[in-house]
């Protein structure tokens, strides 16, 4: 049984202690919730809360002018193990949080919460904060999506990228009309400036490698419609799924590695189809002119400003504004991983993550999800291997395959124990090792050796020998049976 333990610290600043505390500070409390995935499996989430009052340094930090400065000052004083949360409760009348905002979530693993009067109201608010900053029941259920019976999952559940040891990110510039446009993009500089910090932050999660290419004469599979009112071309939302397939043939698969590929395409439309806008379901043009496809990547359309007078010589030189493009691509990358800030209650204020692209608690989100998914994958793989061995008795398991299986089982057990102790980082590493070992054991080529040994070949070899031999034996057996029956019926027939 998997138990997810979140160590939390709730720190009361002076003036914010609720009156109805059960025990004097400091004290510990435990809250458990069961997330049931299907009839047989369930995951327990276990919040270990330590209530205490602020130290002198923390009080000094909380005396800052804005929430952001307070958060920055509190960062070195916190417990920064992965998966843990620290919540500072400020008095109801405090001016640290702006009007109407009750919770401020920082860039690191802390939040500033306004006291709500009674302990119950405070605990309700704290629960909301944990739902935002740590995992929710639906996010855990989404990672175990293959075990949830159909119909219970929301349609967004299967959209996040599957957990993998590494990802390859490819940026492609599609220029279908090189005669009219010469497009230059400073992709190397943009990758170093914008993408590298985000990937460095995510490097705990997986290995990332970045590539880029320019493809010419690559057209979208859909002809856009001309709209007279806006004198532009429009791609409607329902034609977007058909765009990807023809382009994908040109993108090329990465031959040298086995990691899943995330493609980010920048499309510069042809001169005859400029400007091109993407329409959403309501018919309004999308502001970023981009869309993404879950588990695949994203496409952005970059319209070239048409010069007022017809140009003297084609092709036009186009310099791509990489800042605008990378903004969109990085937002799409966050969405692909499942980090959206959509379902936040209105009284929350979330701090922007800045150059690094994601906050520490969002990284924790991913770590929780991937750890649980890895553990589920390992158990599925090993159970399938065991079932396969039961069904087909011919398979020979070599010693190294057996040792990989043992190692996978040991790593999974260690991951589960570490999760129940609250060590998220160690649990994640153990789950990664477990996945590697189990995949190596399951996909070992030596297992395929005698996988298909048809039974009818065995029959074909032995029947021509045994059938003719069996016929007289069976006949004489029948005769013996008949004679004994006859003898039994008339035992006194002997003379």
């Amino acid at each position, binding site marked *: 049984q998997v138990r997810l333990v979140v160590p939390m610290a709730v720190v009361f600043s002076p003036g914010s202690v609720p009156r109805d505390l059960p025990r004097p500070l400091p004290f510990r409390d435990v809250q458990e919730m069961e997330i049931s995935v299907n009839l047989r499996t369930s995951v327990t989430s276990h919040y270990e809360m330590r209530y205490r009052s602020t130290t002198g340094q923390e009080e000094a930090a909380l005396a800052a002018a804005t929430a952001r400065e307070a958060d920055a000052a509190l960062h070195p004083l916190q417990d920064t193990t992965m998966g843990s949360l620290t919540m500072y409760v400020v008095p109801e009348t405090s001016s640290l949080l702006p009007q109407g905002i009750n919770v401020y979530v920082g860039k690191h693993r802390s939040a500033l919460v306004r006291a709500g009067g009674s302990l119950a109201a405070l605990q309700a608010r704290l629960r909301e904060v944990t739902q935002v900053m740590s995992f929710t029941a639906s996010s855990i259920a989404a990672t175990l999506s293959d075990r949830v019976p159909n119909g219970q999952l929301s349609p967004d559940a299967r959209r996040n990228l599957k957990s993998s040891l590494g990802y390859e990110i490819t940026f492609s510039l599609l220029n279908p009309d090189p005669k009219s446009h010469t497009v230059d993009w400073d992709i190397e500089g943009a990758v170093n400036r914008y993408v590298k910090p985000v990937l460095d932050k995510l490097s705990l999660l997986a290995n990332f490698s970045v590539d880029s290419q320019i493809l010419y*004469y690559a057209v979208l599979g859909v002809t856009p419609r001309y709209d007279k009112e806006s004198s532009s071309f429009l791609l409607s939302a329902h034609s977007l799924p058909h765009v990807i397939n023809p382009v994908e043939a040109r993108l090329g698969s990465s031959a040298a590695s086995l990691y899943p590929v995330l493609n980010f395409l920048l499309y510069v439309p042809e001169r005859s189809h400029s400007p091109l806008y993407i329409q959403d379901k309501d018919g309004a043009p999308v502001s970023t002119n981009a869309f993404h496809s879950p588990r695949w990547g994203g496409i952005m359309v970059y319209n070239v400003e048409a010069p007022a007078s017809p140009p003297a010589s084609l092709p036009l030189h186009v310099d791509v504004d990489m800042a605008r493009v990378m903004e969109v691509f990085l937002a799409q990358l966050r969405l692909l991983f499942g980090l959206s800030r959509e379902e936040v209650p209105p009284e929350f204020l979330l701090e922007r993550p800045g150059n690094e692209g994601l906050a520490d608690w969002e990284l924790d989100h991913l770590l929780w999800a991937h750890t649980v998914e890895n553990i589920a994958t390992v158990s599925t793989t090993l159970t399938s291997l065991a079932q396969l061995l039961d069904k087909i008795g011919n398979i020979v398991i070599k010693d190294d395959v057996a040792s990989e299986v043992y190692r996978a089982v040991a790593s999974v057990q260690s991951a589960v124990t570490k999760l129940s102790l609250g060590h998220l980082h160690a649990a994640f590493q153990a789950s990664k090792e477990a996945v590697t070992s189990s995949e190596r054991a399951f996909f070992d080529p030596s297992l395929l050796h005698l996988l298909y040994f048809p039974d009818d070949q065995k029959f074909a070899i032995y029947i021509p*020998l045994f059938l003719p031999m069996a016929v007289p034996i069976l006949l004489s057996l029948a005769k013996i049976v008949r004679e004994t029956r006859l003898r039994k019926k008339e035992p006194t027939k002997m003379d």
Partner: protein
Amino acid sequence: VSHYRLFPKALGRLVAALGVRELHLALTQGFWRTRYWGQPPLQAPAGAELWVWFQPTVTDVDKAWKELSNILSGIFCASLNFIDSTNTVIPTASFKPLGLANGTDHHLLRYAVLPREVVCTENLTPWKKLLPCGSKAGLAVLLKAERLFHSSYHSQAVHIRPICRDASCLAMSWELRQTLTVVFDFFSSGQGKKDWSLFKMFSRTLTDTCPLASQSKVYVDISPKNKEKELLEVSPPPTSVHEAIVQGDKKTYAVYDLLSPSLFNTSRSLNVQLKWKRPQDSSEMPIPILHAQRYVGGYGLQTGEICTLIYNTHPYRAFPVILLETVPWYLRLYVHTLTIITKGKENKPSYIHYQPAQDRRRPHLLEMLIQLPANSVTKITIQFERALLKWTEYPPDPNHGFYVGSSVLSALVPSVTATKDMDVEQSPLFTSLFPSSDGSSYFVRLYTEPLLVNLPTPDFSMPYNVICLTCTVVAVCYGSFYNLLTRTFHVEEPSRGGLAKRLANVIRKFRGVPPL
């Protein structure tokens, strides 16, 4: 992290990930007939040929080679994954790096040939996909599969090598060269006349250039034969005429520069045509200085002999040639029967490298440096014995025979005419196709025919026959024994008679004889 603009990402990642220094892959259908078509510009052996130089930093060259052949077989849709240790050799002298090289440890080189490989449209499509403009603009517009494969010889190749970025050679660039050699034989295919045009050959004409190309040229060989000018005429008139010494002969080329604006001024499309002013009676091509033939001699299914004939038709110059032969392990060569005879006398090679085969693991490798005297024929023979393979090792059609890959002849052939050094900057493509290291000789690599050898094949229905026969014999034997041992005798009352007796009685009644 790597960023690609014109170089295809698939090959770039491959070269970076596996530590490849040079890669040469050729897929060929057909054989170049030197007697009818002259000296080939760039010959490749029939089937698939792959030779690769790895970087000195690669520690396990065999593992990298296996991964490389598997990945290339995916990229080019060819079954290069059949390349394994039974058809890979490590030549010592025949294949030197064609690009920049720091040192040549021949353990970093691997060479493999798959003579049974067939080339078709599926191999042309990924080849075209590697071009930056694809087949949408530029010269590649002509390459449509239904006309290209309607030819007598089709060879497509991919070459990757490192070269100097500029004349000072301070930085290195990767060069990808894709070559396509096709022979349309109109004269012998029944059309009679030797006139041709781009439209007749490709059913397409050139309409524009690839906007990414910095150079795009069409060269037409209009060399006058026997000093007779005005024998042929090309239309439309070329933008310039280029003279060069190519493979020892002075050749004149009509050049169409597609990037010059004057070419597409008059008409939107360019259809190069060549017309002969006088009818040609026979297609005589000048006999090349070096050419070779190979065949299998002997009779029966036990022994045989591989004979190679090398011709040196230069009137007064002798030159050495390196011969590389790769023979599969199931033809067991006997090196003590190797004889090299030139003009009736024995010719000892100055360098022999022989690596014997190991059954099911390694093929034979024979490399020799042979001096060819002027105006001579050299005959190299070696005898072999055919091995019996295990019954699961035979291919699906065993009576077709087993292929032996072409042997490779590399030589620096002295040219009759002195070559002058060509300016690399002006025509880089032309000089890379016909490089001249020094003025008096040019490098030639020739391939001989692949051989088809019959191996003794077993009767594949024998296992079934054996099973049936043994089982029948055993069953009958056992059955009779068992019957004898367990038969019980008992008295039987005379029965009324069966059907046969009644039938016999009916016949007796007709005959008037008393019944049984």
